[in-house]
């Protein structure tokens, strides 16, 4: 099973199958924003979907902002395959919470527009931290 879209209803419903998620433990799953983006991207240019409105828009990550993948809200809503599990969307921003069809799946996002998650070791200097967070050097 892979990503599917139901075009018989309005707005069209994108369904992300559980099998496309990464199992963390128990009933906890996660998916990076890039994995999410790949799923949407691969779906847009096949013969059966070519005549459909575009699924998403994306803004690539910069040194100071994470990537953003947004569903085309004019036409689509999104849900995860029904079930009793949770999904955490990490490493980027999405508008999933705005287009989500609420069901039994618990969805968490780490949307942090304007901020990156940076690994900071105890030995990092202030300058290294500044570079990692803002992409700039403190004079």
């Amino acid at each position, binding site marked *: 099973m892979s990503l599917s879209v*139901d*075009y*018989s209803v309005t707005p069209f419903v994108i369904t992300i199958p559980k099998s496309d998620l990464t199992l963390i433990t128990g009933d906890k799953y996660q998916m990076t924003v890039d994995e999410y983006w790949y799923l949407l*991207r*691969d779906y*847009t*240019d*096949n*013969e*059966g*979907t*070519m*005549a*459909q409105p*575009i699924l998403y828009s*994306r803004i690539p990550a910069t040194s100071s902002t994470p990537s953003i993948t947004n569903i085309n809200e004019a036409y689509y809503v999104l849900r995860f395959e029904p079930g009793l599990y949770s999904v955490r969307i990490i490493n980027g921003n999405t508008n999933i919470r705005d287009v989500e069809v609420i069901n039994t799946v618990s969805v968490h996002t780490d949307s942090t527009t304007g901020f990156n998650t940076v690994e900071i070791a105890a030995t990092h200097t202030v300058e290294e931290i500044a570079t990692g967070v803002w992409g700039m050097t403190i004079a």
Partner: protein
Amino acid sequence: MPGTIVNNMTALQEADATTGWTGLTTPSLYTAFFRESTGCLGVKLNAAAGWAYAAPAGSPLNMANMTIHGWNLFYVGRDTYANGGMSLIVGDGTNRAGFPCAGSDVAGYHATPDGWSCVILSVPDKVDGEAITLAGTAASINDAAVTQIGYYFAASTSAVGNVDNTFWDIVWAYTHTGYAVEITAGTDVSPAGFTDLSDYDSSTATLRGLGVMSEVAAGVFSNTAPVQVGDDGTGTSYFVATNEEIIFEDVGHLNNHKFTVVGNATGTNTAYFTSFTFRNVHSTLTPTLNFNGGNIDVLEFDGCAIIGCAVNFSSTTDATGHKYVNGTFTNCGAIDMGSIADATANLFTSCGAVTSQGCDMTDSSILTSTVAANASALIYNETADPDGEFDGMTFSKGTNAHHAIEFGLSSPLTMTLRNVTCTGFNAADTQNDSTFHFKRTTGTVTLNLVGFTGNYTYRTDGATIILVVDPVTVKATATLKDGTPVASARVYLRASDGTGPFPFEETVTSITRATTTATVTHASHGMATGDKIVLEGITDKTEDNYLVKTITVTGVNTYTYTTTDSGSTAYTGTIKSTFVALFDTTDVNGEASVSRVYSSAQPVTGWTRKSSATPFLQEGVLNGTVSSTLGFNGTAVMLGDE
């Protein structure tokens, strides 16, 4: 003499001495006049017949595939052809006969100013019923072991004075499988030509007087035996013929008349014919012109005429780029244009089928073809679209009910003809004389006709045929920001509003399904078979929504498309249909295109996508209007999506 003459003929008897000659009366040797070398032989005829023969060189000689040339000079009235006025003798020692070649009513060839003329006899074609039998039975002569050759004469008037009045000279023969003479060598500054051969032939020097070619008027050459031009060995040759004419004579029994241009794999072989005429005056037989002899490097005809000859340009070894332009072909039988690349502005009149192997025949005409019923004047069986090759061509139907153009099994599925005129062909499809004949038995063939005049009708051997008259091209190009073409991008372009000639979100009356065929009832849809649509609003068989479907029109209000054999058989919902102008994948140039007729401007919108294989790209946008005269040419710039 810039050209070199290679004489392939065999001198059977030079007739320079009486030795070996046997006759009704003993011949005398004359050295003051002759056709060849140093002398000729003569006898006196007094309103009666006479003959003389001798053993041919190489006797017994296998002449089952040979033609004889001989020379006569008369100072007495000749009898008729039927009475053997001028005949050649063939004998095997047991059987011997004279076979008429000329007479008071049939002229010989290559007449010289001093009265000599050449007589010609093809041994395997000699007519036993015409023979004057001298020994045994004419029909029993063993052509494979000839021991006697010579002359038979019949005079119709009395001799004047007690002097010889009938003379003969050298007897030649050549083998049919080869060429009597070859014209080789020549350079660009000193090319070989037909005068090389006529001068050689007209000479009275030893072993000349071949009886093959003579210049009967300035630039007009009479030809009676096969001639080859070029070099079939390893050398270079350069032949030019300008403002001249060759006449293939009406040689009674000759069945092997041919003229050939050859080349070879090592030398550079060139032949130019300009304002040159190849004319057959033979009453029943057709000389063959072979312009396909192994590796001709340059072969060009400009303003030439070929009359009554079989023509063969077909070759797999010749260099490409040969030309036959601004010329005519008249009564020429079937013609395979073969290695000719440029065949523009030619006129084919009363010829057989003309086969194009992809040559440019722009502005040529094929008139009153002689092909059989249900055959075609022009045959095209190449894999490439002939678009541009047949521009401005004109066809007229001959006596038989034939087609103008046949598209063979290898011809492509989409072709375009521009400004073609067809006259006299049937106004109905499926006839022997419908204009086009498609040999494909399956699939769908689209023929675009731009500026076509005549009945655009067709016969098909099974394929579905779509004739599109005066189409315009709808083209989309996908590029990167820097203009680099994007190959393998999908292109989708559809009607964007209802102001054009084609449907935009028009509500259909119904859709029913039987197995895999869905039938759409759509009032005055205005589309044609091969067009594409997208449907939306289907609420039961939803899989058919937003899928681009190719339709087959079954009526002004109906069309069908192929779907899956499952689900609803009477679709529900408020179903809308929209015309799709272009749905394809870009080629290596980043282009996708289709041709179609647009009766008025059609607004369109769409996009290009490429996101399932590298390079991954964002959607590119297409917008605009398909002009009914100019079509559509849009570019979608695609940004990276990596």
